[in-house]
């Protein structure tokens, strides 16, 4: 009994360490100074790298760029996936499994492969270095996640409730507003958060199509790293983390985690 408990505790701990250790390294790098060689912890603690980051980089506009692109990408993604997922969930479409496969496909191939194709199109259409263009590129990444969560959420809607709404006097629009939307809202919120984060965190696709006006936080981290300032890059990464953590906390409060995981069952 005791051995089993120890084993379970050990496995859980190593799982947590496996995920958190790299993150801890970034934080130590961002807040530490004189961290050389085999030292377990930095010799000093400092906010210097954040000051440096703020001095060398226009952090505010980078942050605004990132959020603007992520919000646009979220809107675009929902505009495509909400009707699409509705059709998949509510109607008996032919080739349903092929359709779902096609939606998931972009997540199954290397992002860089897709990025090359996207870059090619964007150069031709002059979409590089525009927030709308980058957001459109991010839809490719966000849509599969969003679609899976939405299909699962829409499939869970009780058709008898929609019928009840219609009998009680709701026309198609009113039915959507008063019944369908409130019932589907947790799924839509989850899809929106996934979409936002998929865009906010993206590096590879953005790298191929960004420009001087559209530097995002992940790209800036990479650029700072290229300039040789590992600690400044770590400081920027730390800033990058904040929205992700806030969103995760907010999401767990608003949405039952089962809703999110339920989405993955459907895939």
């Amino acid at each position, binding site marked *: 009994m005791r051995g089993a408990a120890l084993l379970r505790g050990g496995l859980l701990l190593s799982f947590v360490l496996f995920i958190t250790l790299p993150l801890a390294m970034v934080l130590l790098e961002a807040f530490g100074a004189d961290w050389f060689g085999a030292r377990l912890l930095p010799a000093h603690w400092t906010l210097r790298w954040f000051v440096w980051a703020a001095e060398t980089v226009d952090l505010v506009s980078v942050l605004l760029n990132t959020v603007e692109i992520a919000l646009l990408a979220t809107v675009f993604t929902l505009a495509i996936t909400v009707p699409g997922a509705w059709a998949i969930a509510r109607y008996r479409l032919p080739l349903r499994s092929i359709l779902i496969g096609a939606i998931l496909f972009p997540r199954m191939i290397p992002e860089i492969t897709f990025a090359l194709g996207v870059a090619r199109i964007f150069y031709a259409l002059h979409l590089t270095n525009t927030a709308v263009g980058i957001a459109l590129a991010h839809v490719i990444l966000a849509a599969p996640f969003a679609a899976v969560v939405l299909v699962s959420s829409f499939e869970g809607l009780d058709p008898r*409730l929609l*019928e009840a709404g219609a009998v*009680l*006097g709701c026309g198609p629009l009113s039915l959507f507003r008063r019944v369908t939307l409130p*019932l589907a809202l947790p799924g839509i919120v989850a899809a929106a958060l996934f979409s936002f984060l998929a865009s906010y965190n993206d590096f590879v696709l953005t790298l191929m199509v960004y420009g001087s006006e559209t530097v995002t936080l992940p790209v800036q981290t990479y650029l700072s790293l290229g300039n040789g300032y590992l600690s400044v890059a770590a400081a920027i990464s730390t800033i990058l983390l904040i929205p992700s953590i806030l969103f995760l906390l907010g999401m767990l409060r608003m949405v039952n985690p089962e809703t999110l995981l339920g989405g993955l069952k459907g895939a």
Partner: protein
Amino acid sequence: MTHVRLALEHIGKSWGRLSALTDISLQVRRGMFLSLLGPSGCGKTTLLRVIAGTLAPDGGRVVVDNVDVTRVPTYRRNMGMVFQSFALFPHLSVAANVAFPLQVRGLPRPEQSERVAEALRMVHLDTLAERFPRELSGGQQQRVGLARAIVYRPTILLLDEPLSNLDASLREEMRLEISQITRQLGITAVYVTHDQREALALSDAIAVMNHGRIVQFGTPEEIYRLPADDFVAHFVGYANAIAVRIVDGCARIEADGSVLTTPHVSLTGAATAFIHASAVVLEPAISNGPNRLPCTVSDAAFMGDHVEYLLRQEAGTQLKARAPVGTPTFARGTKVAAFLPEDKLIVVPRTGADI
């Protein structure tokens, strides 16, 4: 002549090659309580959905107050509906569920809350207005469903097996509630059920359905006393069926050729004689006279206020008898004569319909 609220004219509906409704025609007068009674799969719920407009018939017309509404969408038909699954909105409180149809119709707020309070009082749920459906018992949920369906004074109230998801103990109470409220409001109601006792107790008229057709339409008493055929007789609870052959108005039991004295019949050929278990009189085996079938008691069960007998005839067929406590009792294995009083027998055509 009373106003005809609902008329169905030659309604037909099929799913592919399977015919769900065949040439259904009936009329419901204002304030009438009609039950659609039949076994599962007989088309009664399909017919209700055609009336509600959630399903379009392949042919025929649905006429409400002399207006053809066959092509009118559900939400403009002003029907009320109580669902077997309750179908309450889980994201809305009890009061908000009941207010829902009033909001959709754009009623002013003060009138809304007045009507919601009134409807909740009618179903005795005025103290639970702020609860959510998941916090209520099944019986309470169905009361909310009923309040929601009547609060906007629909033209017709449709009830789709509203009691079948409730515990047996709640069913009778809820049935009485439905009966009282519909009479009190004078509302026209169409009630779908497979339970003949519910249909008999609630209705002004019953349409018995089988295989997508109406096999009999009449008052509960007509249906019960004069079933149109063997299917209806079985369905309304006649326990004993005796296969007979009728020649020149005289019925002979098929099993042994003996004569069965029955009320006047105009049929000829194969027919079935039915009699309720409570109408069968048990007599000592030595008694003779017409309509006495020699039997052996194969089971006798004391049920409190009556005794239920299972009888085996010599030909092998079974009869059920129900004798009030206080009459002579017969032990298992006793030979008896089962007397079938002539005036309690009904003879109907044998359709061979499955029950």
